[in-house]
């Protein structure tokens, strides 16, 4: 019982929230998911930062992969339990009692309310007041000389639903973590593949069995800068007939049975060169100069001379250098270089990211619910009580938001 008491305590929940916040901040300062050598170089054992942060400490505490360590997941789990227990023990009972007719039958009950007033010697006030309360859109329950009214039940229920939607999101992401996977493929057009090359796999993942073919890959430019990349893909069944076909672009993925295919990157694989005398077409591979600069190089060997060709971005022009590194000329696709070779074509390949996540439906539901209920939580929930006995007349009210509004309404009622 003690444990449950601690779990449902608000201060405990706040402490867990802040602990998660602090742990997350560590994760953004210390680089995540690098190899051991990286940490040994940057947090050396002989010169630890601030005197005690060295790579051993980092690896021991799991700070290199904070968001997957057991203690971080435990914190999230505790937060979930705290949310659930708080919802069950505190908020559901309130939900039930808000539907009861909480008549206040004694003078004493009114003293606890933030707004109350005692009017004497006025016999007709009850009818006048009832009329006014009705005009304000309250639900009114009446029992002999007692009146109870409330307005805005949505504002009372919404905070409960907020916590509920947070719980849904946490559950959804746990399910997703166990079952999702991601895979990557880099392919030129015409190629076709199954889902292999997973980057990360959860514990209970099953790789789906679908076949995908890349039909084409191109880009569109706007004002000389790359505007958007497109890939046209087909999904085939096991006999090669096309089930689905779609052109995807960067913000536009292909969705098929819980598998999403995203356009992520691109690469140049090679060039097609025609040797004019032989009338044959050869394919030469391209090598990347620098991973981020998007330039590739290849070599053509002539009888006497060697040439280097450099391709930059996805342009139709390329640069020709001789074997000493001197710049010779800039050439177009389709042009002849030195009367022996003609560069016909470049072969780009598209990078695709595949993702399987069955929990997306749950998560989106949780998101949507959270968005709606967070907004609705700001509606005020107001309650009014009236009690009269002989010449004494008691009127009291309480609200959970917008107290000033209630004050104004109160004043209006009394006039």
């Amino acid at each position, binding site marked *: 019982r003690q444990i449950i008491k601690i779990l449902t305590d608000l201060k405990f929940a706040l402490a867990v929230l802040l602990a998660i916040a602090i742990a*997350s901040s560590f994760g953004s300062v210390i680089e995540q998911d690098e190899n051991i050598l990286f940490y040994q170089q940057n947090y050396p054992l002989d010169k630890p930062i601030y005197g005690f942060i060295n790579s051993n400490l980092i690896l021991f505490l799991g700070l290199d992969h904070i968001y997957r360590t057991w203690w971080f997941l435990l914190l999230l789990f505790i937060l979930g339990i705290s949310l659930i227990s708080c919802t069950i023990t505190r908020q559901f009972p309130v939900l039930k009692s808000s539907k009861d007719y909480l008549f206040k039958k004694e003078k004493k009950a009114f003293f606890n309310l933030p707004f109350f007033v005692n009017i004497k010697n006025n016999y007709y006030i009850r009818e006048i007041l009832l009329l006014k309360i009705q005009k304000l859109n309250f639900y009114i329950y009446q029992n002999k000389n007692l009146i109870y009214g409330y307005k805005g039940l949505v504002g009372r229920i919404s905070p409960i639903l907020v916590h509920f939607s947070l719980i849904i999101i946490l559950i959804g992401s746990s399910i997703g973590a166990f079952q999702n996977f991601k895979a990557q493929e880099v392919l030129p057009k015409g190629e076709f593949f199954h889902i292999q090359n997973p980057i990360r796999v959860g514990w209970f993942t099953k790789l789906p069995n679908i076949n995908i073919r890349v039909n084409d890959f191109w880009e569109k430019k706007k004002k000389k800068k790359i505007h958007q990349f497109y890939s046209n893909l087909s999904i085939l069944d096991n006999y090669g007939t096309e089930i689905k076909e779609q052109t995807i672009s960067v913000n536009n993925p292909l969705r098929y049975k819980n598998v999403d295919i995203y356009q992520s990157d691109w690469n140049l694989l090679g060039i097609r060169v025609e040797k004019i005398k032989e009338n044959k077409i050869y394919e030469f591979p391209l090598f990347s100069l620098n991973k981020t600069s998007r330039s590739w190089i290849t070599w053509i060997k002539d009888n006497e001379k060697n040439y280097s060709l450099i391709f930059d971005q996805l342009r139709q022009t390329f640069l020709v250098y001789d074997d000493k590194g001197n710049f010779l000329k800039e050439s177009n696709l389709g042009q002849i270089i030195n009367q022996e070779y003609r560069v016909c074509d470049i072969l780009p390949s598209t990078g695709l990211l595949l993702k399987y996540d069955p929990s997306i439906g749950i998560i989106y539901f949780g998101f949507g619910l959270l968005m709606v209920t967070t907004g609705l939580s700001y509606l005020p929930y107001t309650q009014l009580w009236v009690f009269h006995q002989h010449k004494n007349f008691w009127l009291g009210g309480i609200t959970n938001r917008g107290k000033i509004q209630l004050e104004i309404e109160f004043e209006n009622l009394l006039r």
Partner: protein
Amino acid sequence: AMILYWISLSIVNNKIINLISKILIFLSNLFFGATLCIRWLKNGYFPLSNLYESLIFLAWSISFFLILLEYKTKSRLIGSIILPVIFFLSFFASLTLPIDMQKSLSLVPSLQSNWLMMHVSMMMLSYALLIIGSLLSIIYLFFLMFKQKNNFILEILDLWSYRIICFGFPFLTLGILSGAVWANEAWGSYWSWDPKETWALITWLVFASYLHSRLVKGWNPKSASILATFGFLILWVCYLGVNFLGKGLHSYGWI
């Protein structure tokens, strides 16, 4: 040239000249809005793609909410605290940022999405509100430390701070969630512990605990205001600080 206009307009910082300062705040809000609209019309996309544009949008939202708040509360106290912020923002945006970063370039493919409008604008609006609210909490702490006489002002500051942060919190929630949905549409993962995402979550957690702290039994406005102050600092780390780290999916505005 237009830039210098705004800077001169935002240096309104005192309680004396009522009407003139009101008009000037209004005009500077209009100028911010006009810049954004012109960029929008000229480039064909919503003006929120680089640091400069987001700073101008933030300055616009803060001045907009300032006008609303001054109308509702009829007090110039908020204005005198907030206006220096707007001033620094527009100063930084216009004079300190290099011209290259101010130019509007065409959007990279990953930014061409309708989610851009919703996610970034929600975040900026929420930043504006939370900045105003938490600044009020900081001023509360100042008053508490130096001027212990006036309980009325203290109470009002605390109340305003609470209500403004209350109003800004759902915007922050919407912003984070729309960012997650956008990330899922574009990159296949709704949460990837990117520095900016992480710090936005931390901001959310801190302000959530601020809002709930009122229900704790031993609550007093002072500790709540300390929480809000932390929230203020964390917000700036989330908005500008992570750009200096230069990594992750959000590095569009680095220096």
